[in-house]
């Protein structure tokens, strides 16, 4: 079975959100796309989920929000504890009254995530009006405050503008404002900066960090950019093929990566300060769900794979809160691996 959860290293605070044994399946595929995910996030902290594009990060996040397209996705397993409630994700995720209020989400695509037909102000205020018992004026007032907080210049005027009048960075900030306007205790940010420039990305990351420290909100941050992870994470979970292969505090994972996939990922990143040699990569591509191997899902691409890997490795601790799902961790101490060289 899977080992300890990827969770914050601060024992004192209670986790805001815990996810147990979450699995997800695309209809028509017998193999789960996301398999037995356990997560835990505490107040004021950020858990980053890292993984290759298309490995199921976004759909998982949507599942938590209760936003899954039921006709294509099926959740065979999974419970979520959030603010004292237990949600059975199999039947339904988050209820509509909690969604957008206690838990909010920022999406990957700022350019298309705002409704082109309505004014920014109305779109933000709508979230307040819907969840709070207040007047339109009050809602608009808080939308204004929120815009100010996310650092949009001339917010009064922006309120009355339409999405197409804003740049991508501003739109993403509007999305953040919309997500945060009800002071959620938990935020899911799904690659909020992937579509943006580095300079704007830096601004947005700063903003999220800042707001988080102000409100103590817990955050689940999805990205595959290790640079971003290093900037914002408290804890990291590395996913491959729909499973967590390594998790732990950001320092531990970056300084002492254990899983071959984590190592491969980190090698792939060109560094400003690094050498200009050929990049080390993870060879091959993620197998499609139909071809997903049994046991360790990484074994088809792992240079160290042996027959043992046909058995699924458990996520087991290698350090404080630092867990890895690999039969051969730590690699350098495995005779077999050394001999293979």
């Amino acid at each position, binding site marked *: 079975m899977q080992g300890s959860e990827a969770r914050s290293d601060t024992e004192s605070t209670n986790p805001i959100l815990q996810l147990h044994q979450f699995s997800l399946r695309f209809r028509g595929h017998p193999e789960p796309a996301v398999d037995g995910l356990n997560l835990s996030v505490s107040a004021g902290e950020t858990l980053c989920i890292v993984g290759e594009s298309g490995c199921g990060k976004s759909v998982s996040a*949507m599942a938590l*929000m209760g*936003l899954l397209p039921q*006709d294509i996705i099926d959740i065979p397993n999974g419970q979520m504890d959030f603010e004292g409630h237990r949600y059975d994700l199999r039947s339904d995720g988050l209820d*509509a*009254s*909690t*969604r*957008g*209020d206690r838990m*909010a*989400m920022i*999406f990957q*695509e700022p350019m*298309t*995530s*705002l*409704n*082109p*037909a*309505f*004014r920014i102000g109305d779109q933000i205020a*709508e*979230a307040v009006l*819907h*969840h709070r018992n207040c007047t339109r004026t009050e809602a608009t007032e808080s939308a204004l405050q929120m815009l100010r907080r996310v650092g949009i210049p001339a917010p009064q005027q922006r309120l009355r*503008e*339409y999405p*197409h*009048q804003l740049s991508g960075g501003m739109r993403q900030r509007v*999305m953040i404002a*919309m*997500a945060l306007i009800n002071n959620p205790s938990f935020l899911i940010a799904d690659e909020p900066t992937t579509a943006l420039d580095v300079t704007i990305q830096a601004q947005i990351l700063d903003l999220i960090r800042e707001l988080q420290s102000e409100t103590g909100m817990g955050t689940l941050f999805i990205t595959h950019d290790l640079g971003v992870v290093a900037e914002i994470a408290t804890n990291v979970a590395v996913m491959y093929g729909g499973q967590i292969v390594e998790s732990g505090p950001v320092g531990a994972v970056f300084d002492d990566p254990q899983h071959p996939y984590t190592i491969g990922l980190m090698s792939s990143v060109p560094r400003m300060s690094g050498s200009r040699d050929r990049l080390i990569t993870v060879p091959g591509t993620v197998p499609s769900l139909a071809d997903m191997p049994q046991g360790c899902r990484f074994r088809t691409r792992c240079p160290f794979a042996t027959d043992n890997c046909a058995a699924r490795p458990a996520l087991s601790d290698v350090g404080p809160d630092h867990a890895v799902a690999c039969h051969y961790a730590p690699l350098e101490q495995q005779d077999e691996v050394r001999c293979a060289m």
Partner: protein
Amino acid sequence: MLSFILRRILIAIPTILLISVFVFSLQKLLPGDPVLAMAGEERDPEVLEFLREKYRLNDPIPVQYMTWVGNALRGDLGISLRTNQPVTELIAEKLPVTIQLAVMAILFALVIGIPAGILSAVKKGTVTDYVANIVALSGLSIPNFWLGIMLILLVSVKLDLLPASGYVPLSEDPVKSITTMLMPAFVLGTALAATLMRHTRSAMLGVLKSDYVRTARAKGLHERRVVLKHAFRNALTPIVTLTALLFGELIAGAVLTEQIFTIPGFGKLVVDAVFNRDYAVVQGIVLVTAVGFIFMNLLADVAYVLLNPRLRTA
């Protein structure tokens, strides 16, 4: 906006000219001698010649055309060969009737087509979807005249609920006017409803997959509000354009529907005029219909701009 409308009107001018040439060439295109149709059973040669002269049918077509355009610009569309009424007067008399029929039909089409389209998009792949589609297709494949007669037999003769035919001007008795128009408008509306439903459905299917609909859901809005406000508002643009396009189809449908329900509108007038080779009337009506169609498209374009903040605020 004003300059936009002006430009749009300027563009319409060549279109209208083309149409006028087209309706004029109908005279040459259509076999059959209008004067023979006018002369009566006896076909007195003297009368025939006189009529030819009177309606200038002996002039070369281009000359006739120029005369007609010249008169038309002065608001004179000639007089009906058949009833001697000035065509402008005839049109003024029929236009409100057809407009009322068209508006009611469009309303029917919208009231039936759009909710059905939304519903079947939201419930894609379910029984509701199939039923809605099959109903829509049957609406499309039942000829107007057939549905009309069936309704008369059922609603008027058997159930005695609505008058079988006839027309009461809106100004005379609004309630009666609307009740007499209910059946024809429904008949005319069904085929349009079908088209509208299919297009609403596909527009909604596209929009429902969009990111901003997901955003709306993420705000915790109820599904109804998500669908009706966020999704539908964006699916509206193609629907508005389509509705304007359907106007043309509407007039064509009105021809038969008006015939069945004996509604004295454009459709009936124009078919009779074509068969009697009453060219002045045909030309007048086709011209007015075309201008109406272009006007509807203009409205649709304006609505398009109004519905698209992107265009509106630029």
